């Protein structure tokens, strides 16, 4: 029997606490659980550690003063390569950073998902990554090296354990079986398994028996085993892309990015789009734009 895990964005936020470590799925400005990010923006939550292949999720949360620490391989809006609000946060020193090689971040999430303390990798050797983040250390392999000598030295990428993961899927059932219909799952499955609790927002909740109506079984990569709550959020990834349901809202993204140039512009943007009653109100406001 498929359990009923449906809830709202506000229900999710009520389970979160100051200082939590929250993983956010997607990649740059692609298939981000933005309706959940917006709910956090409306809340009094603070001092969060955000783990993300970063896009406007990190930028918005930094601009709103929600972030104590960001863990990322990059923070980009894709068509705008550098996230302007995140740049301000870094350059003014208001957020702590754990800046990783993209692959190291995958391994950190994988280690947490598999409940091991670290995974070894060559990535990071010889770079300044280990100099600026001395908490990441190397380990010597207990096995002979390729030359038969001493075991080789590798980076021990620590597990990135998450209190909560937030991911957005094209379709899901009420139990949290999630489906991606676009070209890439990104690391959403690892995020879900690296977290104590995962909240999955989706464009549309469908009956379990209809999950294969729009995509083959290969697209059913998130099992309800990994999911605590399901939130139906049509257009919930706006303004990031959510292929094939919709592309990125480039005009809105430009408007958002431009607000990094002055506190007044940001305040006006926040008042108009973010300080609204709920997600439904946000969707009405952006729907009235065009």
């Amino acid at each position: 029997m498929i359990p009923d895990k449906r809830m709202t964005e506000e229900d999710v936020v009520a389970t979160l606490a100051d200082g939590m470590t929250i993983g956010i799925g997607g990649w740059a400005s692609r298939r981000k659980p933005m309706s959940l990010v917006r709910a956090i923006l409306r809340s009094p939550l603070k001092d969060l550690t955000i783990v993300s292949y970063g896009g406007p999720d990190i930028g918005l949360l930094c601009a709103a003063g929600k972030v104590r620490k960001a863990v990322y391989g990059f923070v980009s809006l894709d068509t705008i390569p550098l996230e302007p609000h995140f740049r301000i946060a870094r350059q003014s020193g208001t957020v702590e950073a754990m800046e990783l090689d993209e692959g190291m971040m995958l391994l950190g999430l994988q280690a947490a998902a598999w409940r091991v303390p670290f995974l070894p990798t060559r990535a990071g050797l010889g770079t300044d990554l280990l100099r600026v983040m001395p908490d990441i250390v190397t380990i010597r392999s207990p096995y002979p090296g390729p030359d038969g000598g001493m075991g080789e030295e590798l980076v021990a990428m620590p597990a990135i354990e998450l209190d909560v993961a937030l991911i957005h899927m094209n379709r899901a059932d009420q139990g949290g079986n999630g489906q991606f219909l676009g070209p890439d799952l990104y690391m959403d499955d690892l995020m879900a398994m690296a977290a104590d609790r995962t909240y999955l927002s989706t464009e549309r909740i469908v009956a379990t028996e209809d999950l294969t109506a729009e995509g083959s079984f290969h697209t059913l990569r998130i099992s309800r085993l990994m999911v605590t709550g399901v939130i139906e959020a049509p257009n919930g990834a706006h303004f990031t892309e959510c292929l094939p349901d919709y592309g990125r809202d480039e005009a809105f993204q430009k408007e958002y990015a431009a607000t990094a140039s002055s506190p007044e512009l940001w305040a006006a943007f926040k008042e108009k789009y973010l300080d609204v009653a709920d997600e439904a109100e946000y969707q009405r406001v952006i729907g009235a734009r065009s």
Partner: protein
Amino acid sequence: MTEATRDEVCVVAVAECFRGDGELLCNPIGVIPMIGGRLARETFEPYLVMTDGYAMFAANAMPVGVPGADVVVEAWNPYPQMFSVLWNGKRHVMMGASQMDRYGNQNFACIGDWHKPKAQLLGFRGAPGNTINHTTSYFIPNHSPKLFVDHVDVVCGVGYDRAAELGPVGSRFHEIRRVVTNLATMDFDSPDHRMRLRSVHPGVEVDQVVEATGFELVIDDTVTETRLPTDDELRLIRDVIDPNDTRKSEVRG
């Protein structure tokens, strides 16, 4: 066929970086790098594997800068799989740089102190994993002493001196093949792997390159000129791979 312009010389210099790679993931990032990679595959390295810029390996000579161009998908390669490919080593990436030193240490993370940067740039992105796991080349469209510096602020991509410190085992997959700029092609074929001027592009003097480089390059007694595109290459660049001239936005003729 009208004469080749500088951007087209750069495209061919990029293509030459991939000569001899055979059946390998050719993964150039940027406009001219992408055109150069595709040119290599359409001419002397037909078995190269290339992406569509997203999650697919595309078997056809997709034109760049043409939205909705047909893709002949030969494999699905989403990001998690891409990391497997690069850790497996069957890849030659071409990246950019904001700073680079004489040993090829590369920075595009930030300018200034990493803990509170003057300018936050891309972050480490994939540079640490790429440079230590497989062959890397670089394309720099703006050769200048601000970019080629004595010391980079943050080492993202591993250079030859750092690789040497790791020893023969730790550095066994490290190779920086070439650095192509708008003025010249460089490599590290010198006794201590310092950056060497390999060729200057037609119309560029050696002194120009020296002035535009913030450290001393290794310069042999005779410096050759970067080869010009053939007529067949020019036709492929102009008519097939980059019909909208997007390459000219990166390097001016």
